[in-house]
């Protein structure tokens, strides 16, 4: 699986390269600024891009802008955005085209390499990886309809919105996958969402719902 990596701090960039190579990824390009990133994304068309939000030369949200621009040119290009901060506004922009294959995580999540690599794989496969901090903010704004959910269903919803698979949710909540499937069916009924067999579509529907 080929990755384009954009991170301006050399130490962190090398660490990420080492981590990704050790877990079976091939680094197509590792860049340290916005314009190079956009070029690398369009030229290499990687299976997934791992991008720091803040990049030179402007040190603003240049990484995010380059990722969004690349996705306009190469629709559905999987992008995992890393940041020192998570902003709902940016999450919303990443999710806006509704085609999935996006991730938005705090840089701290890299500490847990297993989870992080899992998130990269998920995004590469067209899924999503939303930081728990984004999701919990979305949940507090979810409003009235969410109060109809049971605590277990809320927990399921939160994990699902982060982009976890049913198996991962079952493992985290220490229940069977069938129990998770039941929770999910209940959530979709209570929130009036159209049921879909496709995991990624289901997650996008939930995120779109929370992101209203």
């Amino acid at each position, binding site marked *: 699986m080929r990755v384009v990596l954009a991170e301006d701090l050399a130490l962190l960039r090398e660490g990420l390269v080492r981590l990704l190579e050790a877990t079976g990824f091939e680094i197509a390009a590792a860049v340290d600024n916005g314009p190079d990133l956009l070029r690398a994304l369009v030229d290499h068309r990687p299976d997934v891009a791992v991008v720091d939000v803040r990049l030179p030369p402007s040190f603003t949200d240049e990484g995010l802008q380059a990722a969004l621009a690349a996705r306009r040119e190469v629709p559905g290009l999987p992008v995992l955005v890393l940041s020192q901060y998570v902003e709902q506004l940016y999450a919303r922009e990443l999710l806006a085209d509704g085609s999935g294959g996006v991730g938005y995580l705090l840089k*701290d999540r890299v500490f847990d390499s297993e989870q992080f690599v899992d998130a990269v794989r998920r995004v590469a496969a067209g899924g999503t990886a939303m930081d728990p901090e984004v999701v919990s903010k979305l949940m507090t704004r979810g409003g009235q309809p969410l109060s109809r959910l049971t605590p277990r269903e809320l927990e399921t919803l939160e994990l699902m919105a982060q982009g976890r698979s049913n198996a991962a949710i079952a493992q985290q909540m220490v229940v069977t996958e069938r129990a998770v499937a039941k929770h999910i069916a209940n959530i979709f009924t209570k929130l009036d969402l159209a049921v879909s067999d496709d995991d990624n579509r289901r997650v996008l529907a939930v995120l779109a719902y929370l992101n209203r």
Partner: protein
Amino acid sequence: MDGDVGIIERIEASGRAAVRGLGLYLMSMVVGLLLFCLMVNSITMIGMGLGLFLVPVIGAKSRRYANKYRELTGRWTGTRIESPYLPEPPHRPGLTGWWNRTVHTLSDPATWRDLAWMVTDPLVACFTALLPISLIGMGIHGILLAAGLWVPIHELGGTQWYTFVPVSDWPTAITAGVVGLLYIGLGLKIARPLLAVHGRWAHQLLAPTEKARLALRVQRLTQTRSDAVDSQAAELRRIERDLHDGAQARLVAMGMSLGAIEHLLDRDPDKARLLLAEARQNSAKALSELRDLVRGIHPPVLADRGLVDAVRALALDHPLPVEVAAELPGRLEPPVESAAYFAVAEILTNAAKHSGARQVWVDVRHEDGMLRISVTDDGQGGAMASGGGLRGIERRIGTFDGVLAVSSPPGGPTIVTLELPCALSSPRISPS
């Protein structure tokens, strides 16, 4: 049809102007002259000692009256007149206090300009503010004569002269009526222009002189500068405290855990693993605290995208639905941007905490060199401009000559508006 409506509206406006002119004249004639006499008497009585107590009191009354007149003139004539008085020093008790206040009152040039105005205005107002209503009154008199009032007067043996018409029979009475109509027309025609003239006249004596304006400006700058320095210092203290109690303490704890782990690694690996998990938790918490701290100093979205998107981000994080309408074709100066951002954040926090609102609207725009932001909520109202939070915002934007206005009648809605004079730089060209 439109023309008719226009004419009726114009006549109404003119009539209003005439009545307002009468109001201003009466104020000058009654209150103004009275205060003038009292003030002059008080000053002459300083020698006897009594004036020492009268001058500050009557002076204060005169100022309140003159300020009322300034306000009315501003509202009615369109000529805004600012208050020219130098700020009063703090009152001190005893005789020296009275003496100081008397000296302050008499040494302020505005006091003497007020006096000059109070004694001349009744006369000047006769030709400006009062003239239109007099003409209209004369016109009504003419019409009354034409309506038959001339009959009893004539029967009692008098000949009523109406301007140049001796009214003694119906034809002359009708003429008087026609002349009266002309008077009314003339009175209405000149009412608004003359009221404007009166406004300019009042401006001559009531507005601050250039020197007074500068003195007031210096006073205001001194105040806002010290506010800015104070709030800056408080901010630094807060950051220092947050770092000390937060990230710094966690790093110390982490260091201690790591030291213990070093010792335990061989002897008690299970315990070491426990401490490692704790150390990792502390590092995550330290990071999240540093994040919150930075967000409070300089929010990332504000740095990345500017005010509008930063306010949008605030709206997304807000517990209530917030609708943002914004028109800002460019970036503001960073300090202004930051002040405006934190002001909006504070107002939104207040709305969430106190208003009981269900919806909030934020409007951001830049017009005539002025950044205007209004935050409206549909809560129960009753917010006070003097409340702690709003006072803090006022101080914060005061550094940039910004002003804050709050409208919050009981029952709502609450509208908080802030205005900051500032330039808009051309939009940043995005690198793509």
